[in-house]
């Protein structure tokens, strides 16, 4: 598609609906819905982050200073639920909405009205979930894994939390259906499957995972609900049920869920690294197969979260070896990213800095994962700060870094303004250093035996906890700085106008439309030109 053609389009079809209600509440536009998702995710990131700050404040010193143990448990539980379902997942859906139709040359998402609904369930569900803080007995306090029997012994919150999870599930499933229908049905002519950007590929696979496991989670929490309110015995041994049954069902959902949060991040970095290495992604096809392999394996490894719960010996062995298998496709990915950078004409703009930090820090998180996959030693690590360190290395320096990097990478396209490279680099170094101060000491705390989810601890853990808290406050503050950068970029303060191409080495359809992207793109169903694409596999 030529620039001239797009410019006329811009002129003809750039009529945004007037008024707040029509523009945002009733929108069917994938870009507006993407923006809503991203703003919502950022709001939840601040909310969940604020809870984390209170946690780190309480843990700054041994002893109880600021919060009571029960409220502390509410904080850890809600921090996780909000970050997983309110921040990370909606942020990736926001990216999917904004970028997938543009990347494959589609006029919009396949089912635009349903797309609106997928988003507009979220604010309601989270208001309901957050309101449990003000109820008798407070918010859910049994951990985000909601294990019975503990979770059944809480206050009124259970019903609200369960229904909120149902609503989030409905939202996620509709969002995922939309992604699949868009990718399978809306690709422009000549946009073959093996020409799709890797971000599109990883989201396609993520969407399958979502549709497969969100209903299972819904079923699990429904059983909690009926056990608590209607006298069923699913998780009650006296009635022939088993509390461990919940753990099996939960982790059958929960393990694919962690890949739901990391695969889109793999996709984003697979866009960024080739752009700034000025080389095509190394091993494109193997990246696709590796993503699919990771997704497949995610369904058959769930019980590695439960090694210490008491499983038959054969089960321990099977889940240990199956889990280790995951490191093969993940290793393929890490080596491919490194090989893409090898002998590339690299420059280090802000998105690339995040990408390099991701490759290193995510690999550390992967290695600690491999350590815990070894069943006998996991008996030592289980439920200690070691696991807290592990999943924050993969979720913060994996998923959250991807979201931040993606914002820096695409915000010039979204707003038409180039963010301040100087502020972006300050944000990066500030975050990259503080995150290690925050989470690295937690490895040592865990190995020394400090359990997770406790408001108080023995004095020998004091120093590392203090360091961790200092890192935590610094990291939290850095993200406030990030919001300032984002707002300045949107408002065009201290920024320059972005070119259409934005990045010298960028390839893919999104770089051949104007910046900011017009309200409607690609209405003609015109064929995609191979020379605009990053990957034209001859496979």
């Amino acid at each position, binding site marked *: 598609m030529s620039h001239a053609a797009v410019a006329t389009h811009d002129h003809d079809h750039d009529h945004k*609906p007037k008024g707040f209600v*029509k523009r945002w*509440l*009733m*929108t*069917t536009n994938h870009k507006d819905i993407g923006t809503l998702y991203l703003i919502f995710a950022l709001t939840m990131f601040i909310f969940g982050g604020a809870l984390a700050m209170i946690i780190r404040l309480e843990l700054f010193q041994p002893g109880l200073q600021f919060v009571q143990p029960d409220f502390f448990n509410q904080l850890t539980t809600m921090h996780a639920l909000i970050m997983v379902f309110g921040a990370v997942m909606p942020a990736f859906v926001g990216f999917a909405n904004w970028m997938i139709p543009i990347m494959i040359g*589609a*006029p*919009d998402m*396949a*089912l635009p*009205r*349903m797309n*609106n*609904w997928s988003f*507009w*369930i979220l604010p309601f*569900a989270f208001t*309901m979930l957050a309101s449990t803080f003000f109820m008798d007995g407070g918010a859910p306090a049994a951990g985000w894994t909601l294990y019975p029997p503990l979770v059944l012994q809480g206050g*009124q919150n259970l*019903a*609200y939390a369960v*229904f909120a999870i149902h*609503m989030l599930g*409905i939202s996620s*499933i509709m969002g*995922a*259906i*939309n992604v699949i*229908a868009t990718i*399978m*049905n*809306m690709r422009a002519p000549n946009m073959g499957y093996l020409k799709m950007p890797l971000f599109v590929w990883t989201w396609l696979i993520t969407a399958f995972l979502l*549709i497969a*496991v969100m*209903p*299972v989670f*819904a*079923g699990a929490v429904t059983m909690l609900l*009926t056990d608590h*309110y*209607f*006298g*069923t*015995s*699913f998780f*009650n*041994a*006296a*009635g*022939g*049920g*088993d509390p*461990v*049954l919940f753990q*099996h*069902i939960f982790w059958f959902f929960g393990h694919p869920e962690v890949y739901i949060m990391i695969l889109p991040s793999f996709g984003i970095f697979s866009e960024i690294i080739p752009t700034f290495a000025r080389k095509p992604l190394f091993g494109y096809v193997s990246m696709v197969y590796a993503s699919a392999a990771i997704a497949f394996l995610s369904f058959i490894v769930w019980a590695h979260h439960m090694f210490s719960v*008491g499983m*038959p010996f054969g089960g321990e062995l099977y889940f240990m070896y199956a889990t280790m298998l995951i490191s093969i496709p993940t290793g393929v990915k890490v080596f491919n990213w490194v090989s893409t950078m090898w002998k590339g004409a690299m420059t280090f703009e802000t998105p690339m800095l995040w990408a390099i930090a991701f490759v290193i820090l995510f690999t550390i998180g992967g290695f600690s994962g491999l350590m815990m996959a070894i069943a006998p030693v996991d008996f030592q690590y289980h439920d200690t700060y070691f696991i807290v360190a592990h999943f924050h290395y993969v979720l913060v320096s994996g998923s959250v870094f991807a979201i931040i990097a993606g914002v820096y990478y695409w915000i010039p396209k979204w707003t038409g303004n180039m963010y301040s490279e100087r502020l972006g680099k300050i944000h990066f170094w500030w975050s990259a250093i503080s995150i290690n101060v925050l989470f690295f000491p937690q490895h040592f705390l865990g190995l020394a035996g400090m359990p997770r989810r406790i408001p108080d601890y023995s004095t020998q853990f004091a120093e590392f906890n203090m360091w961790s808290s200092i890192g935590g406050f610094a990291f939290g503050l850095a993200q406030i700085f990030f919001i300032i950068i984002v707002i300045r970029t949107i408002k065009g303060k201290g920024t320059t106008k972005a070119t259409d191409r934005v990045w010298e080495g960028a390839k893919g359809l999104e770089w051949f439309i104007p910046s900011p992207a017009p309200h409607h793109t690609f*209405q003609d169903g015109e064929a995609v030109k191979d020379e605009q694409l990053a990957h034209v596999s001859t496979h």
Partner: protein
Amino acid sequence: MSNTSNDQYYVPHLARWPIVGSIGMTLTAVGAATFMNSETATTPVLMYLGFAVIIFMVFGWFAEVIKESENNVYNAQVDTSFRMGMVWFIFSEVMFFACFFGALWYVRNMSVPWLGGEGTGLFTNSELWAGYEGVWPTNGPGDIGGKFELIDPYHLPLVNTILLMASSITLTIAHHALVDGARKKVIGWLIATVVLGAAFLFFQVEEYIEAYQHLDLTLRSGIYGSTFFMLTGFHGMHVTLGAIMLTVITIRMIRGHFKPESHFGFEAVAWYWHFVDVVWLGLFIFVYII
């Protein structure tokens, strides 16, 4: 935008109904949760209000889509999107039922035998539940919900199996008639399908009454009652929904909707109906017979 051009993918400009749906959903959820937590409330008023809003939303939303469809706003590509949407929605439903079937499998093959002393459950059994045999059907070593009897699979459940199988056949005949353009025949066989579905639901209610009043089999009858009523109950809800959907397409047929070459709404309902049918077969085998 002109609404007769069929060459462009139709992207609606405004979505009025989703926000109504979200409000309805929230009212339902808050109403139900408040009711469950209340010790005095007798009617979940807010929940019913939420249901009403959701029904209003569904009618409004579908009316809009049906109108657009009848005005030929949708091209073949839109049709494909709808098909994919329905297929993956049904897949999500399959996984929801898989969750409950999986739970049934686990308690029957794992946790109940362990409670009875098998495998690593030796001490659990001897120290906590001495004398418990761990044989299915069971309401657990605590005899939760008291003694109960089972539904005989070869009476009402067998009748229901035949009814549902027959309804799948009548629906397929209706579908073939639609493709052949024999509209009256379609309506006749659709009505037959709805009647068979309604009969199924009638017998299902009968069975529940028998279970509660004569067999002492309730939702509270330990793990057997839990799995039995949750599986058959969720299935019954899906049959109810399917029967409503069938009624809607019957009315649409009478009003002259659907063409031999294009009738996605009809097909979507048919897929859904066959899906609840297959789930029933699973129930009949794994819940009633084995």
